[in-house]
């Protein structure tokens, strides 16, 4: 199995957000989805955005992806505006649902972004094989999405997001709809993927254990207005397994995150 490698310098800034605000104009009153967000994400970081529903974590991810426009403030993604970064296909986006096209088989679903990036048929085939093997789904090429379980579908979705070798992987609660056993397994798989590919990952979740286990940096957010309460760096070994969930360090970081969330909650009410 060949590994996709990235030759980026290890500690350059991937995403730089300064004083960013986003207000949705509604018919009754403006909703401050994001308020004064400042965040630097380095290349190769695994950053989790965690917070209660309505704290703007998904909105922040969508701003990075140029799926929402900020009201004020600046943001650069890979040194470019989010718009340019999107046009350059700098990121692969994994949604809450697998978002596979039901009329395409698994292989052909992975070919979708490759077709649009102008890869040849031969390269498409090669890349889909490579990334399907990365998520252990060799043998399922000709199956259709409805023939796969939810967890397998989400793995296809991850393979698809990685297939065109973008700099970043943006993930919006990708395992939220899965049962806990599947979620744990996919968390471990994702960690290995991150190690292998060295991609910058921005990961939205509302699960504390998930955030602590996966992340090199945890961004704790609060709701109304959506703002950053705390940024916690972790320092677990790269080849960690779920056993670390019993260690004092893990529990300590979890406690920090929980306190941050609590603080944000008290602030809000």
């Amino acid at each position, binding site marked *: 199995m060949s590994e996709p490698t990235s030759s980026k310098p290890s500690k350059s800034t991937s995403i730089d957000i300064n004083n960013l605000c986003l207000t949705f104009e509604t018919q009754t009153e403006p909703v401050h989805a994001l308020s004064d967000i400042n965040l630097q994400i380095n290349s190769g970081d695994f950053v989790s955005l965690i917070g209660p529903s309505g704290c703007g974590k998904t909105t922040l991810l969508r701003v990075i*992806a140029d799926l929402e426009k900020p009201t004020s403030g600046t943001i650069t993604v890979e040194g470019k505006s989010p718009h340019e970064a999107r046009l350059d*296909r700098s990121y*692969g986006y994994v949604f809450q649902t697998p*978002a596979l*096209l*039901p*009329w395409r088989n698994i292989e052909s679903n992975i070919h*979708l972004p490759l077709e*649009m990036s102008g890869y040849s048929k031969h390269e498409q085939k090669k890349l889909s094989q490579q990334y399907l093997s990365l998520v252990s789904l060799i043998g399922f090429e000709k199956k*259709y999405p409805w023939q796969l379980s939810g967890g397998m579908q989400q793995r296809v979705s991850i393979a698809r997001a990685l297939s065109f070798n973008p700099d970043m992987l943006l993930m919006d609660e990708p395992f939220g709809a899965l049962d806990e056993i599947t979620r744990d397994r996919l968390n471990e798989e994702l960690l290995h993927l991150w190690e292998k590919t060295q991609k910058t990952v921005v990961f939205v979740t509302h699960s504390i254990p998930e955030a602590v286990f996966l992340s090199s940096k945890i961004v704790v957010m609060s709701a109304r207005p959506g703002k950053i309460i705390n940024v916690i760096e972790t320092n677990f070994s790269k080849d960690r397994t779920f056993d670390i969930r019993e260690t004092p360090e893990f529990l300590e970081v979890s406690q920090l995150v929980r306190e941050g969330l609590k603080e944000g909650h008290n602030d809000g009410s």
Partner: protein
Amino acid sequence: MEANRILNIIMSGSVGPVVILVSIIIMVWYAGAVYLNSSFLIDRYEKNNIDWSLSELATDSWSMERPVLPSPHQVAKELKKTIWDKKITSKHSLVFHSGVTLSSAMLGFAMGTFLGILLSVGIVYVPALDRTLMPWIIASQTIPILAIAPMIVVVLGSMGIVGLFPKATISTYLCFFPVVVGMVKGLRSPNIILVDLMHSYSASKAQVFWKLRIPASIPFLFASLKIAIALSIVGAIVAELPAGAQGGLGARLLSGSYYGQTNLIWAALITASVISATLVSVIGRMERSINKRMGLQT
């Protein structure tokens, strides 16, 4: 118990229920023929002082020259006479007339489907068309087709356009509507996440159209086509009524009612419905095979 088991065996397949239903329809039909034709016959009996029994009444009402409602076997005889016994080039052959109707229906269906898809794409992609076009399209279907058909045929005729095309436009007029409604819904059916997904790949409008919206609309298209193809036959027949057409099932219906030949009318009606049902099932077959190729569950 034994009777129950036999009943279960009969009703379990698809043949049993159909045979039973058709038998009931035929029985009701025979009874209806007696009922509807009886007053004329009883009049005649009384005028000629003939004694009559119920069985004589039934036999007579099933074998009249020009009954109000012909009996099934009379229609079957008429069908055999006009389908099997006549050469298909003959003016009296139902196959010939069906061919005339079918050709204009198919041309109209093709034009209506094309027009419907074109309009739906316009409505989905141009907001101004979405607001202005839809009320007119709906209004067009509230006008009785029988009222507008002669005008279309006459207007096109005065412009020197005669023959197949004016007839086909009536079918088009009926066909395009379900296609527009279905395709607008179909093209808009991809959920917001799939649209965002395409956006995240910085897909062009054309790519979103061909790779997302068109495939997503296929099931909606087929639902519409099934309605449209049946309407195309209705449209073609209606178009043949005012034109004084020499050929076509509509012309047969017209001459049948002109000469009071109800056998002929019923034979033409049954032929038209058999053609419609066949066409709808052809579309159904196409749908199944395309669904299979697209890997969709059916």
